[in-house]
C-alpha cells in the first residue's frame, strides 16, 4: 500500500510505457478515417503511440494514460481442468497459466487488464490480483466493474462493500477504470432507466463513486452498456447536462454488431449508432466482444477463404481485431483470452495496428452482410413444424439453403462467371428441391410454426430472408 501513493499513480500515466514515438503523437499517420481532417470540438481523436515492442497505444484524453490497444479481458481465464472458466465452470483457475499469460502480456506492451467481481464465478479479481501484484502497480491499468446486478446488492452498503472487496482482491488501493456494469439491461419488470436509478442513483452509490474518484481511488468512472441507442442517450443526457461526467464507456463492437446487432441478439444495438453517440461527446470507447465470443475467429470456410483472399496476412481473428481497433475513438479492445496462442496472435495484430482502409472497411461490412444472409439455419429436419397449413415444405427449404451455404455457392457480393454458375446452381437446385408452390415466398407469416420448433428458429423470419435472397438472385440477370 505504501508504495502505491497518489504521486505514483499519476506518474503511471507516462511511466507505464517506456518509449513513445512522438512521430505518431497526433494520431494522423495511423488515423484510418481521416478523423484528423474532420475533427471538430468534442470529436474524439486519440493519439496512437507505440511501445518498444510495437504495440499500438491510445491516449486517454481525460488522464493522458497511454493505454495499449489490446486489453486483457479476465473473464475466460484458463482452468486446471483445461479450457477456460467458461468451458469448465467448476474447475479452479489455473493460476500458473494466468501468471504466465499476464507476464507475457505485460512484456509485450499490454497494459490494461479488465475484470469484474462476477467473472469466473467471482474468482477472476482474485486471480488477476495475484498475477498483477507481482509487477509494479504503475506498469499497468486495472479496470473492474460494480456488478450489483442482484437486488440484494442495491443498497449503498452492499455496493460499497463490493467495491472495497474488489480493491482487496486486486491487491491495490485504486482502480484505473471503474465501470457500472451492464447499463441498458433491465431487472424484473422495470424499465432500463428505472433499473439504472435503483442500482446507482436512488441509493446514492453514483455520488459515492464520484467521491471515490475525487479521492483518487477511481481514476476513470464509466459504464458498460448493453441496450438501445435511446437508453444510451438517456444515460448520456446526465453527462450532457453536467450532472455526471462519464470518463469512458464499454460497448460491444465488431464488424457484425456494427450494423447487424439485432440479428445476433434482439437486445443489442448496432455498434455504429452507439459508437457515434459516444464519439460525438468525446467519451473514450472501450470495446468488448471484438470476436463475439470467438465466433468471428472461427468462420465457415467460404467466409474465411474470402478473408484470406482479400489479404492473406490476416486471419479471421486479425480482421476482427483490426476492425474493432480502427476507429480512433476506441481506447482499448478487450479480449477474453484463455490460451497463450491467442494472446500472442492478438498482440501481433496490434503491434502495430494496421488500420482498415476505407475500402477494407466497406468490404468487411459487405462480408458481414453476407454472413447474416448466408448463415446456416439450425434446422434438424425434425418436421415438428409440418405440415405447414399454407403448404410450405419448411425443412426442404432450409435443407437446400444450408446445403448451398455449406457449398459456399451463395454470395451476394460477387459477380462474374463463378457468380453466374453459383446463381444458377442455387436457383435451379431450389426448384428441384422444393416445388415452386411450396417455396419460401408462400409463407404468410401466420407464425404457427414458431412455437413448434424445438430449435427456436424464427421460421417466418428465415423464410422472408431466404426469399429476399432468391428474389435478389433472380433479379440479377
Amino acid at each position, binding site marked *: 500500500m505504501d508504495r502505491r501513493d497518489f504521486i505514483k499513480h499519476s506518474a503511471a500515466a507516462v511511466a507505464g510505457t517506456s518509449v513513445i514515438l512522438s512521430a505518431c503523437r497526433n494520431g494522423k499517420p495511423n488515423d484510418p478515417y481521416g478523423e484528423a481532417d474532420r475533427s471538430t470540438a468534442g470529436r474524439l481523436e486519440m493519439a496512437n503511440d507505440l511501445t518498444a515492442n510495437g504495440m499500438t497505444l491510445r491516449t486517454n484524453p481525460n488522464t493522458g494514460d497511454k493505454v495499449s490497444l489490446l486489453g486483457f479481458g479476465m473473464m475466460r481465464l484458463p482452468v486446471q481442468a483445461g479450457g477456460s472458466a467458461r468451458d469448465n465452470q467448476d474447475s479452479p483457475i489455473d493460476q500458473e497459466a494466468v501468471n504466465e499469460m499476464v507476464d507475457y502480456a505485460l512484456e509485450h506492451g499490454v497494459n490494461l487488464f479488465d475484470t469484474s467481481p462476477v467473472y469466473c464465478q467471482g474468482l477472476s479479481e482474485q486471480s488477476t490480483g495475484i498475477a498483477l501484484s507481482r509487477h509494479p502497480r504503475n506498469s499497468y491499468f486495472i479496470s473492474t466493474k460494480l456488478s450489483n446486478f442482484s437486488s440484494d446488492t442495491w443498497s449503498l452498503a452492499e455496493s460499497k462493500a463490493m467495491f472495497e472487496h474488489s480493491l482487496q482482491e486486486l491487491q491495490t488501493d485504486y482502480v484505473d477504470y471503474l465501470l457500472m456494469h451492464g447499463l441498458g439491461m433491465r431487472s424484473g419488470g422495470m424499465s432500463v432507466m428505472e433499473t439504472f436509478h435503483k442500482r446507482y442513483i436512488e441509493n446514492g452509490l453514483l455520488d459515492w463513486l464520484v467521491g471515490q474518484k475525487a479521492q483518487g481511488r477511481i481514476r476513470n468512472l464509466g459504464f458498460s452498456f448493453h441496450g438501445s441507442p435511446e437508453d444510451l442517450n438517456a444515460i448520456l443526457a446526465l453527462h450532457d447536462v453536467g450532472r455526471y461526467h462519464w470518463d469512458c464507456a464499454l460497448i460491444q463492437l465488431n464488424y457484425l454488431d456494427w450494423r447487424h446487432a439485432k440479428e445476433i441478439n434482439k437486445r443489442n444495438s448496432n455498434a455504429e449508432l452507439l459508437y457515434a453517440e459516444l464519439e460525438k461527446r468525446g467519451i473514450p470507447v472501450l470495446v468488448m466482444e471484438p470476436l463475439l465470443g470467438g465466433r468471428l475467429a472461427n468462420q465457415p470456410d467460404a467466409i474465411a477463404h474470402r478473408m484470406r483472399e482479400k489479404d492473406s496476412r490476416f486471419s479471421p481473428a486479425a480482421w476482427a481485431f483490426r476492425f474493432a481497433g480502427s476507429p480512433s475513438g476506441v481506447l482499448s479492445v478487450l479480449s477474453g483470452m484463455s490460451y497463450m496462442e491467442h494472446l500472442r496472435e492478438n498482440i501481433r495484430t496490434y503491434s502495430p495496428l494496421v488500420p482498415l482502409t476505407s475500402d477494407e472497411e466497406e468490404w468487411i461490412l459487405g462480408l458481414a452482410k453476407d454472413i447474416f444472409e448466408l448463415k446456416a439455419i439450425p434446422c434438424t429436419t425434425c418436421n415438428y413444424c409440418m*405440415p405447414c397449413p399454407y403448404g410450405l*415444405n419448411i425443412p426442404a427449404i432450409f435443407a437446400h439453403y444450408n446445403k448451398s451455404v455449406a457449398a459456399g455457392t451463395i454470395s451476394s457480393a460477387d459477380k462474374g462467371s463463378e457468380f453466374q*454458375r453459383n446463381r444458377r446452381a442455387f436457383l435451379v437446385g431450389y*426448384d428441384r428441391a422444393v416445388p*415452386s408452390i*411450396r417455396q419460401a415466398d*408462400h409463407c404468410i*407469416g*401466420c407464425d404457427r410454426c414458431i412455437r413448434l420448433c424445438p430449435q427456436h428458429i424464427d421460421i417466418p423470419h428465415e423464410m422472408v430472408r431466404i426469399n429476399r435472397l432468391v428474389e435478389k438472385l433472380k433479379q440479377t440477370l
Partner: protein
Amino acid sequence: MLRKIRITLAAVCFVLINMLFLGISWGISQHIAWVAKIQFLPALLALDYAMLLVLIAVTLLFGRIYCSVICPLGIMQDIFGWAGKKAKKNRYSHSPEKKWLRYSVLAVFILCLIIGFAPVTTLLAPYSAYGRIVNSVFRPLYDLLNNGLAAFESRYDSYVFSEVQLWMRSVTTFMIALLTFIILGFLAWRNGRTYCNTVCPVGTILSFFSRFSLMRVQMDKSRCKNCSLCEKNCKTAAIDYKSGTVDAARCITCGDCLDKCKFDALHYKPVLHLHKSTQDPAEPDLNKRAFLTGAVLATSAAVMAETRIKMDGGLAVIEDKQAPHRETPVTPPGSVSAYNLNRHCTACQLCVSACPNNVLRPSADPLHLMQPVMSFERGYCRPECTRCSQVCPTGAIRPITKEEKTAIHIGHAVWIEQNCIPVSNGDHCGACARHCPAWAIQMVEKEVNGKLVEVPVVDSEKCVGCGKCENLCPARPFSAIYVEGNKMHHLN
C-alpha cells in the same frame, strides 16, 4: 444445286424458329428472334414496310423462295411430302390453279384483318399456325425430355437443365393446333403444297409478285422427252409437262424438278426467252402419326399428374388456383392495350413459348382466340423479365426494357374481402403487401365480426398489375386479391 441451297437455307431457318418456339435459346433468344421478324404476316402487322419491301423484292427476283425457305409451315409440309414420296414415288400430278378459292380466301382474310376479327386471321396465318403446332404439340414433348434430363443430371450436381412446369395452357388452342398439324400433314403427305396454293393468304399474295419474277423455272420443250417425272414430282402441281409450262404463280422454287429431269430440259434462269418448267416435291419423314398420338396421350397424362399434388409425409394438400373472371383481360407490358394486341397479334404463340413464368397463355375468348392473355395461377410477371416483348414479331407486344417495364401499369389489383385469410380464418397474413414490388399495397386494421384484423388496401395508381399478389395470395382456389386489366396500359 438450287435444291441444295434451298434445303440448306430452309434448315437454318427451320432450326432457329423451332429453337425459339421450344425455348431452347441458351440465352441468345434476342439474337435469333429475327427469324420470326422476317415472316411476312408478322412484318405486315408490325407495319415493318422495309421488311415487306425486301420480301416482295426477293419474290420479284427469285420467285416464291419465301415459301420454301422462310415459312416454317411450308418447310413442315415439305418434310411430310418428302416422307410421302418415300412411301410412294412420283405421286403428284398437274392441276389448274384454283383462283376463285385463293382469291376468296384472301378477300375474307383481308376483310377480317381490316375489321380486326382476329379468329379468322390468326387461324389462316401460316407462321402462326406453325407456332401453335410447336407450342401446343411439340413443346410439351420437349419439356418432358428436358425434365427427364434435369432429373438425371440432378444426381450429379449439374445444373444445365432447369425443370419446367408441364401444363395445358388452352384446350382450344391445343385442339386447333393438333387438327392443323394432322390435316396439313395429311395433305402434304398426299399432294404436297395444296394448302399453300389454295388457302394460304401469304402464298396468294406472293403469287401476285412471283408471276412476274425475274428468275423462274422454265422448261425447254425442245429437250423434253415427255417422261413426266417433273410433273409427278412437283409438290405445287405447277408443271404441265404436256404443254411445257411452269406456273410461276404457284412454283415455290424448290428445285426438285431440276434435279429430277434427266434431259436438262428444266432451268432456273432469268426470263428472257420464255419456256416452261417442272418441279418435284421434297423431304422427310412420317411414321410419326403413331408416335405423335402416343406423345399427345403421354403429355396429357403428364398434365393430369401435375395437377394431382404429391402427398408424402407431412405436406399439406394445396388446392390448385383457379383463374378469376376478369372484366378486362390483362395483356403483357409492351402490348399497349388489349385493342392494340388484338389488332396486331397473329396468335403465333411465340410469346407464350417465351414466357418463363407460366403467365401467358392463349385466350379462349372467341374474339381473341389464341391470342395471348395473362393469368397468375402458376406465376406472375416478374420484374426482370421482358422476353415476350423481345420476341414478338408483329408489334403486338412492343419491345420494352426492364426499366420501362416498371412504369407500365397493365392492370390493378382488386381485393375480395370474403376470400382474405385474416377475414376468413383470422390468421395474420399480409403476404400481398410484403411481396408487392411496387409498394402499392398497405395493411390496415379493419373490424371484422367484432375483431380487428389487418387487411390489404391497394393503391391503384402505384399498382403495375404484375400479379405477384394474386399468385402468392394464400387463399385458394380463388385468390383474395386479383388483377383486373387496364383497358389501355397506364404509363408513368
